[in-house]
């Protein structure tokens, strides 16, 4: 396994963990919060809301803007 493969495997592992967590949250909402509920919690203040939306905007800027 090359370094490149290992790096990509790391990303895929994180992604798979997110999927597993989300599925677990949907199956047992009283035990684990879904990602949407976590974002709702983070975005209950203006600072949180703006922070999350800035992160989203940054994604668009990073991939497309000058």
């Amino acid at each position: 396994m090359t370094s490149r493969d290992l790096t990509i495997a790391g990303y895929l592992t994180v992604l798979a963990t997110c999927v597993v967590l989300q599925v677990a949250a949907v199956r047992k909402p009283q035990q684990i919060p879904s990602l949407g509920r976590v974002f709702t919690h983070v975005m209950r203040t203006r600072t949180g809301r703006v922070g999350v939306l800035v992160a989203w905007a940054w994604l668009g800027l990073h991939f497309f803007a000058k």
Partner: protein
Amino acid sequence: MGDWAARQIRRHCARADAFRYVCPVTQAAHEAGDDQLTAPGRPVAITPGQAALSGLRQPLVGILLLIGLCSAISGKPLDGFLMATVAVLLAWDAARARLRAWPGYAGADSARSQAQRDSTGAPERLGSRWRPARLTVTTAGIAAALVYATVVGDFSRYSWPVTIAVVALGCLMIAIAWQGPVRSRPALTGRPLRRTWLWALVLVTGGGWELSSLLQQPDLTTDSLAHPTISALSDPVLASHPGRTVFLGGWLLLGSLLAGR
């Protein structure tokens, strides 16, 4: 005995006065939408300078300024300018909320009532007025998103047209977020709240993995074949019009989900 009773009465009255003084402060700060600014049990008498410092002390302001600086020195001055602008606006807003929370501030009562209208009015206003037309709005939104993704996806990356389109939409969404939540949702409590660390751990691990790849590049602007970042891995997909359109569609979907929180 008489002196002791008098001292107790004076102490009680002082506490009662302090309570009356503090309660409007914390309430107004909550109403202003920033829980971080509230300091229960501490009377507030602040100058504009102290209010400005309290705004700058917010963690997100520092993080945004740091991101802005890193973006600027890595060849993305527009990113840096926008991050710094939002950081300054957040600091200014926090300072203003702190200043307005002080009962001695001129117009504190009107500011509090305005903050109360802001905090409670948006969900009801949007909920009652928009509910009958929700299907129409959703359909129009999906159509607009498809047109946006198709048209903007046709522009080449890092060109001025795509930059203007992305910056305009980003600013619009941040302005919407600034107004308050679109609809009210139940708060996270109990065990689910205590287990939010699971998500934090996964997301921080992902960010750390990306950062380690970035730091193993020859330099910040040259991709590494052995340690590719997510940006480097997505380059082949974003090289084509369909790829850019799909990516932009996903970005818009994510933004609409977040804005609805």
